[in-house]
């Protein structure tokens, strides 16, 4: 498969960029942040995601979705990144949609709701302060006909506005994913206000009782890993979008801003740094697209490619936002300019589904050293 977008994918890219630049430019994030919006996302916008076919990009057509693949979802994630759009696309459109497809018929009835942008589902995976999929300590123990869940989850995207929770918990067999009603007894949800003004929450589960059929698919860890792989690749795509937008703003600033009587973009030292950054970003784009393609064509083999993509996205987008602020100088430090918002979002994305260090470690082990 050529490592470029198909014509259909390019059309989707244009549609997603166009729609989001119109409906949810960065001003949208600022408005939610500055009004201290209690939801932190707009349900109306999420409904529009449904209408555009974005919310259900990964939902099979039989369940009212677009039935497309990871590449198409990545194209949307990238547009989300470019505009720093706060939305349940990642939590619900990617993670929950991926998880629920593996579920029972009963569980799959949530899929049309997701595709329509009517339902927000939060997937509670991480614990502690870093993404460590091998160290899930939340437990699911058999209790009567069902399960009992105990543990504390962190960085639950959209946790405080979720209509449905999906919780990763350790069973005797391995890590399984369980559907939990946010209002169930023993569930506590605390919104955490984040540096990037996107949504996250801490979720505590104390003796939460769920039915036997709350388990999605098998509890062998396979679905959990698959959800993490989709999450990692999608966040990498979002990061490339955000990094590229910050880069474009910086290039524009280099062309416009005058100092010592010349456009600062004429200074060769800045030219070389900008050119180096261009190379870093292009190389990352190839890695991200490859990971997305493999998730579609050979998901079993996609793991290392996702790690390469996420590690590269972390490295190159960090450089992009650092250079963006530095090259903007003083104004880059003000809240008024957007480059700082890109820096904040990239920092959060680094932590989601494992940072550069995590994936480097993972790849080193996979490579046998």
């Amino acid at each position, binding site marked *: 498969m050529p490592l470029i977008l198909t014509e259909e994918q390019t059309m989707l890219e244009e549609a997603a960029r166009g729609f989001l630049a119109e409906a949810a430019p960065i001003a949208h994030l600022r408005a939610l942040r500055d009004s201290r919006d209690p939801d932190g996302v707009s349900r109306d916008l999420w409904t529009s995601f449904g209408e555009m076919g974005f919310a259900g990009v990964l939902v099979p057509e039989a369940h009212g979705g677009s039935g497309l693949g990871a590449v198409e979802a990545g194209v949307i994630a990238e547009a989300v990144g470019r505009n720093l759009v706060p939305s349940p696309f990642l939590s619900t459109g990617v993670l929950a949609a991926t998880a629920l497809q593996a579920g029972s018929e009963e569980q799959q009835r949530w899929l049309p709701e997701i595709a329509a942008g009517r339902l927000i589902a939060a997937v509670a995976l991480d614990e502690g302060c870093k993404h460590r999929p091998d160290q899930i300590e939340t437990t699911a123990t058999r209790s009567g006909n069902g399960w009992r869940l105990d543990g504390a989850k962190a960085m639950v995207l959209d946790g405080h506005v979720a209509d449905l929770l999906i919780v990763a918990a350790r069973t005797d067999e391995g890590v399984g994913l369980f559907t939990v009603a946010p209002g169930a007894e023993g569930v506590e949800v605390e919104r955490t206000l984040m540096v990037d003004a996107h949504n996250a929450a801490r979720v505590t589960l104390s003796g939460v009782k769920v039915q036997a059929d709350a388990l999605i698919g098998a509890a062998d860890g396979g679905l959990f890993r698959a959800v993490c792989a989709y999450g990692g690749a999608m966040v990498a795509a979002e990061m490339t979008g955000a990094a590229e937008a910050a880069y474009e703003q910086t290039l524009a600033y280099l062309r416009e801003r005058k100092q010592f009587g010349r456009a600062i973009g004429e200074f060769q030292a800045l030219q070389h740094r900008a050119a180096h950054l261009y190379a870093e970003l292009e190389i990352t784009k190839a890695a991200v697209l490859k990971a997305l393609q493999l998730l579609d064509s050979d998901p079993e083999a996609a793991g290392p490619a996702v790690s390469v993509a996420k590690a590269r996205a972390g490295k190159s987008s960090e450089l992009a936002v650092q250079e963006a602020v530095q090259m903007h100088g003083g104004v*880059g*430090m003000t809240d008024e300019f957007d480059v700082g918002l890109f820096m904040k979002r990239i*920092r959060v994305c680094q932590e989601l589904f494992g940072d550069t260090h995590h994936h480097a*470690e993972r790849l080193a082990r996979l490579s046998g050293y």
Partner: protein
Amino acid sequence: MSDLETFRAETRAWLEANCPPEVRGPVRSEDEAIWGGRNATFATPAHKLWLERMGERGWTAPEWPKEYGGGGLSREEAKVLASELRRIQAQPALLSFGVWMLGPALLAFGTEEQKKRFLPEIVRGEIRWCQGYSEPGAGSDLAGLQTRAEDRGDHWIVNGQKIWTSYADKADWIFCLVRTDPEAPKHLGISFVLFDMETPGVTTRPITLISGKSPFCETFFDDVRVEKENLVGTLNRGWDVAKYLLAHERTMIGAMGEDLNARPLGQVAADSLGTDEAGRLDDPMLRARIAGMEIDAAAFRLALERVGDKHKAGKAHPAEASMLKYYGSELNKRRHELLMAAGGFDALEWEGERSREGSAARSWLRTKANSIEGGTSEIQLNIIAKHLLRLPGA
């Protein structure tokens, strides 16, 4: 016992008796910082006492001459004092642009009268100063300065606007670059003047940064009267004063990242991420980067010391301050990137008690200004290329 050993013993005894327990240990919040000034606030009465005691001894400016209120210490004695303060984890008795920046400029360029008038109250932390250099649109290029001072015989009338004036809203006086000769080219025609921020026509407006509320302000001058006796140095040669002072500022910003009471970053990371069986930080890739940064930081501290010693021996090139400023601020940015990685999800919180109102994230974002303020890293590299390397066309 050598003189220096005697001095150490005496200093230790005096500090034991005079440094209150409340001002020992890491600075826990911004409130604890002692800035002094007319409207000074103190976290505790002990903080006030600490400033008074140190100020009286001149140890807030240990190497300044005694006649201007300073400590009159030699460089070696000052090092002993610093190490004794470190030993008991004493918090700084005074943070002061007066001590760091204006004072050295006055000592070098001020009249006897100016020194007598301004230095002692700086040492005692009675007057808080701010700096008025940058202007909107001028950035690192001070030659483009627009604020104008019109000659009215015994005084000037100043009109214009400054930006990035730290703590302008809290300062009592300002040291300021103004254009006194609009015809002169570039760096000529600029003068270095002092005036009271309560003078009619001065207004300030704080700037919100990506890290949140900030000490930076926009400052506006609308027909502000400035007495001619408050000119420092030669008329129209303010650039010389500013350059001298920028070098001091650079060293200071370069060293700013150094909280000497801070624990090694690797240990901080181990607190949050744990260690493996062999006692190593349980994130090998992060650990490697931390170790690299800590080595550079250790060497940088020594370079700071070395440039100080060269300075004292009359062997330092003024542009070495640019080297320290450049390296120190880049290092501090690296340090905070690593702190964020070590903190993980916890360090991303922006409000609330658990994160102490997002202190990790805000500090991280704040460091991004280190390589911009006081002359960008690019400007420092230009200065090194020109004055130390003497490269053509630099």
